[in-house]
């Protein structure tokens, strides 16, 4: 299974590299959207520091959803997705490969850009580190859940908008634990409980979402 | 009956807006649902009739 996973990941990353600008859109959205908040709310540092974890996390959620339909859309259009479903390779492995590729190209950049945003929001150094860690654990969850949504809405006209509506409510626990970890640090407490829960969520989602995505692909492609 | 007058009943101890706002909105929404559902069934039946005539 790991062979399938890695070769699919490599393939998807190669394809993403050919459309580099498109691949960078989520990152661009992330920075722009988060950057709008200080402008809209005012430059008062105390206020910005309070809202930073929530704002950065929500913008990450939205940015991740932007590119999620790409996981299957182009393969669906040129027929290669059908081949993947017919192949003897485990579909779950293929899905995991695609999710991993999505995370590497769309999720990881958000994690790496988050310290920059932390600075914009005048966050303390320690808080920035925990924010980045929470996103490191949270963005894979977003990719995993996004895959389910993308598979369910495959080929639909309003697919992209539908994915937001379907997936975002499911990401709320991750949002709560992710921002909660940073807020705990801000309050002088340990983020351990929140991060443990976030980790558990990642594991549970990692086990369930690929299976659900594979089932959804079969439903959409029948 | 705990109310001494109809006015008292409507007033709901000063909370008339909240109580009647709740019961009223619920009634409106339910009636709307009933009407819409019955209309949907009617339309479906009419379509079936047209199918048969065709």
């Amino acid at each position: 299974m790991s062979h399938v996973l890695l070769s699919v990941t490599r393939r998807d990353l190669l394809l993403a590299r050919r459309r580099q600008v498109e691949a960078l859109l989520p990152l661009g959205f992330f920075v722009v959207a988060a950057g709008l908040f200080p402008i809209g709310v005012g430059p008062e540092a105390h206020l910005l520091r309070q809202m930073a974890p929530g704002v950065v996390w929500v913008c990450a959620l939205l940015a991740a959803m932007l590119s999620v339909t790409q996981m299957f859309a182009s393969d669906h259009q040129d027929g290669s997705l059908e081949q993947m479903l017919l192949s003897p390779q485990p579909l779950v492995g293929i899905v995991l490969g695609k999710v991993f590729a999505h995370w590497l190209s769309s999720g990881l950049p958000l994690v790496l850009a988050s310290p920059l945003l932390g600075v914009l929001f005048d966050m303390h150094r320690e808080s920035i580190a925990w924010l980045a860690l929470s996103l490191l654990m949270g963005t894979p969850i977003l990719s995993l859940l996004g895959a389910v949504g993308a598979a369910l809405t495959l080929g639909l006209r309003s697919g992209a908008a539908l994915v937001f509506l379907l997936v975002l409510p499911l990401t709320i626990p991750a949002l709560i634990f992710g921002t909660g970890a940073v807020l705990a640090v801000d309050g002088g407490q340990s983020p351990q409980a929140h991060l443990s829960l976030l980790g558990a969520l990642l594991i549970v989602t990692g086990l369930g979402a690929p299976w659900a995505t594979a089932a959804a692909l079969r439903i959409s492609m029948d | 009956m705990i109310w001494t007058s109809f006015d008292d009943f409507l007033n709901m101890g000063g909370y008339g807006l909240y109580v009647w706002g709740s019961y009223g909105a619920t009634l409106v929404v339910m009636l709307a649902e009933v009407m819409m559902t019955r209309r949907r069934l009617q339309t479906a039946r009419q379509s079936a009739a047209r199918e048969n005539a065709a």
Partner: protein
Amino acid sequence: MKNTTPKPGLRWSTFSAPSRFYALAGRVVPWLWAVSVVLGLAGLYVGLLVAPTDATQHDSYRVIFIHVPAAILSMLLYLALAFWAAWGWIFNARMASMYARALAPTGAMFTFVALWTGALWGKPTWGTWWVWDARITSEFILLLLYVGYIALTEAIDDVRRSAHAGALLALVGVVNIPIIYFSVRWWNTLHQGSTIKMTGTSMHQTMQLAMWLMMFSFWAYSFAIAFTRSRAIVLEQESDTEWVKALGAAPSEGKA
């Protein structure tokens, strides 16, 4: 379709044929309406005219006679929706999928009513229209789950794909509900949000009676509406079958 071995009495499969469901539901619906109206009137009588004024919340508490039953039904209907949708998916049972689809708008309606009445209860009691209390927040998310299900099933034209995709989405939702509720409760207690207390630990007997009457009235209402909507969906989705065409030839059946 189903085996025709004659067996006395009712079989599970009696209801699985859309044509039989259509006929049976049509006969049952008027009784369901009657039950709903009678129980509803009784509940309104007890709740608005008999139940005493509360010591702390005075008369604004009467909103709970709608709020609590609506909230309970919003959750029950979602579970029923997920159950029947899953049944339809696993056994390829069209009627089950159609019934699940019929439940969704009513479930969403009750969720909205629960939120609306919750706000109207919250304003006089805690001073604000909206409180991010764990239960209200979870109820809000439930509304989003309903809307998502309806949006997805409506967006897919192919009947079978729509039914099965909806089933998967509903199951994903059901699995997530405990996770969501737990996380929201956690979030709420950490932020020291207001904890909503019911009117005292033991409710006056008449209050309890009113609540139960309204609950069962709403339950009967839900069956009546879901059956009616199901019948419409059956006609819509089975429009090219013989029995539906034959129905069109028959004189109108009268009231729904």
